[in-house]
């Protein structure tokens, strides 16, 4: 893997620190009037999400982290792991619960997800921004209520629960924004 000098640090650069992959958030150059210059760097741990501050002597080098974002197709969950496939090469990777995390409830078979790979292993999985899912259970709402005000919980086919307007019924297909977990609209099949 390449090494990077502090002079190459900028937001988004992926580096290795203490055996963990990090992304550079912020890089500040500080130097006393005469003397040693330093880079005060804020970095985010890509495994835990924690942001910490590290200081380097300016010009020192750090090992780069082999971290890439790829678009993979979700295949299935075997009860323990989530399986994804590269639609071009058909190569498969498996992600554990730590990597899939909150994305799990939005994963529908064949969905294209952004997966962050570290040394080829999934570090994190982002569900598509919008998903289309069938409601498997919701209380019958009042017929004729089209205002959308109020709302009620609805359970989707993946088990996710979202608030939907009262007029939306079981068996209907809806569009959900996974970033906010909010109902967007009904989808006509």
């Amino acid at each position, binding site marked *: 893997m390449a090494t990077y000098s502090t002079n190459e640090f900028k937001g988004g650069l992926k580096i290795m620190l203490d055996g963990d992959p990090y992304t550079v958030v912020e890089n500040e150059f500080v130097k006393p009037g005469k*003397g040693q*210059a330093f880079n005060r760097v804020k970095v985010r741990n890509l495994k835990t999400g924690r942001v910490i501050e590290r200081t380097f*002597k300016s010009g020192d080098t750090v090992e780069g982290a082999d971290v890439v974002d790829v678009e993979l197709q979700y295949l299935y969950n075997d009860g323990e792991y989530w399986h994804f496939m590269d639609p071009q090469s058909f190569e498969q990777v498996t992600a554990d619960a730590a990597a899939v995390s909150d994305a799990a409830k939005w994963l529908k078979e064949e969905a294209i997800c952004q997966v962050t790979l570290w040394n080829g292993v999934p570090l994190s999985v982002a569900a598509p921004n919008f998903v289309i899912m069938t409601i498997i259970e919701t209380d019958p709402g009042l017929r004729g209520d089209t205002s959308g005000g109020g709302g009620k919980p609805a359970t989707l086919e993946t088990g996710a629960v979202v608030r939907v307007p009262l007029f939306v019924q079981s068996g209907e297909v809806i569009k959900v924004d996974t970033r906010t977990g909010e109902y967007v609209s009904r989808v006509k099949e």
Partner: protein
Amino acid sequence: MSGYKHPASGILRLRAELLAQIRAFFAAREVLEVETPMLSAAATTDPHLTSFVTAYSGPGPRHAQTLYLHTSPEFPMKRLLAAGSGCIYQIARVFRDGEAGRRHNPEFTLLEWYRVGFDHHQLMQEVTDLVTELLADRLPLAEPEWLSYQDMFERQFGLNPHQATVAQLVIATEKRRISIPPGMPKENVDPWLDLLLTHCIEPGLGQGRLCFVYDYPASQAALARLQPDNPLVGERFELYLNGIELANGFHELGDAVEQRHRFTAENAARQAQGLPVMPIDENLLMALAEGLPDCAGVALGFDRLVMLAAGKETLAEVLAFPFDRA
């Protein structure tokens, strides 16, 4: 079209006004404005400064010679002083490779001046007069603060910086939860002092007032003479305002032998760190050998002063075109 963006004309006007005020200040005090070469066959040996390198290809004795853009006009100005110029000042563009950030631009304007017969305390007084005048009606200032380097470290860490060991400085660093950079030396205290200074002390220095820090460790004396009765201390000072370093001054070292010794030691440090060895300024050493009048000199970062006067946070906001759009 972003290459044509420039700061509001208010900033350009402020720069011009401040430059005019500086020239009037020195004219009234009969300090002579001078200009010296930016390109030199010699360069600073300071391991913490990197000179831009270029080459001359035309006719004459400098044909095909490597030349360096100056990092400050100090050496030729001292040659003028040794030649009997009397008190002089210069407003110079200077160049430092590898220095870029909110408060650093690789090319910037230094106001540098020398006062014959002054020591560093007298010069600090004159710096106060000038900066107070320049910031009047622009940035309200409380009474200046004067702090020796030793006071500063004792106040913050209870440590005497002239006697502290690396082990003590490591403990102070850990107590402040500063992440220790890889590759810090075990035998040299200066990078540890610099680490504590930049992370813990500097941001708080001179809040709403000028703060002078003076009498630096001899190892950080740079081009300052050592105190006659205490060779652990160099007669150097720094000026801070609102946590920003504005100026660095010396009661100038006039001893050619000592100066050669420091240049050689710095080049040895460069070699040890794998940095290029720089050509020593023999013209300066010759001038010192002929006799530098007793004097004090200071270099003030003009762009940072403009930034403070304008109430801005970054140098980029007060430059016609910052480095990335130059």
